[in-house]
């Protein structure tokens, strides 16, 4: 065998081992490296009340309700399998709309409601011009204007 072939085999083996190790490490991190719980993973996670966690998902359509004080907002975060009630006191981000994504920092209270300290909007991978939003029904048809009503 020529030295060149030896080096080639060595390089291929090393690369395969490296990528294998990387994939193994990544799959082992699958739960730990997730940035937030979804309502479904939270329901199975057995997180004690008061522990700081992050919750992410879709804001359920029709669930946003604002208190008379003007800054407390109640809403429901959902994923495909579960829902979670959330309460937040503060200014919501511009992109916080029903049917769109949200990531909340906070903790569970004793009654099973998620009390959020901060909200981040999470947008999906769809990019649709504003004037087409009513035509394209496959994506969230809400705009900022619906919240202003």
């Amino acid at each position, binding site marked *: 065998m020529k030295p060149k072939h030896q080096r080639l085999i060595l*390089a291929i083996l090393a690369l395969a081992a490296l990528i294998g*190790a990387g994939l193994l490490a*990544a799959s082992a991190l699958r739960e730990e*490296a997730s940035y937030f719980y979804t309502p479904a993973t939270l329901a199975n996670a057995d997180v004690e009340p008061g522990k700081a966690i992050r919750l992410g998902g879709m804001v359920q359509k029709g669930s946003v309700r604002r208190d008379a004080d003007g800054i407390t907002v109640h809403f429901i975060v959902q994923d495909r399998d579960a829902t979670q009630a959330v309460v937040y006191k503060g200014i919501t981000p511009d992109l916080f709309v029903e049917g769109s994504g949200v990531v909340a920092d906070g903790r569970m209270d004793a009654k099973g409601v998620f009390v959020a300290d901060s909200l981040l909007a999470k947008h*999906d991978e*769809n*990019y649709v011009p504003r004037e*087409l939003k009513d035509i394209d029904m496959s*994506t969230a048809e809400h705009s900022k204007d619906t919240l202003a009503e």
Partner: protein
Amino acid sequence: MHRFANPARFLGIAKPLTPLLLWPGILLVLGACWWGLTQVPAERLQGHSVKIMFVHVPAAWLGMGGWTGLAIASIVQLVWKHPLAGVSARAIAVPGALFAALCLITGSIWGRPTWGTWWVWDGRLTSMLILFFLYLGYIALANASSEKGSVSRTAAVFGIIGAVNIPIINRSVVWWESQHQKASITLGGSSIDSAYLWPLFASALGFTLIFGAVVLMRMRAQLAEIRIEARMRRMAED
């Protein structure tokens, strides 16, 4: 492959090719950014901040594509000992790092109005930051080799190891729940409206041409450095 091993032959091609890549690239980027800023409609949720896409996405692609090229060149350097492989890997590193940084900076600026934060430590952002640090590490290693111009085997091995991060960046939004949204453009199609897609492609092509031109320029500069060094060594020996 060894047809281009002769640096003189490579220089004969690289020199006229550089402006042929550079100027169309600059024109395409300027045109795409002008079109993107003035002619593209506001996005349904994000409004006008969507337009930073035309810089952010090409920068992300080139940051990742750059390391892929660097890793391939490192394999060629170690296995075939091609004389231009190390030179090209080293030439890729600086523009690669630049585009990775540009991706992080524009992403941060984009995140503030859309997500409500400059930075979060989710899988995508963290792995992209690691890519930037890998570039810095490679540049430091390549510059540390005793002879200017040539690249040490340590740097080449580092280039190959760092390639593990590329599929991790790509898969980060699939494996882990993340603040960053999933890929819009996949093998199955695109979920970006054509109003944004065409300027995005034009801008990506333009930035890629500029990237190629910068790599050729840096390779030529390094080959010149090697020649100077060889000549000085000969003079010192006389």
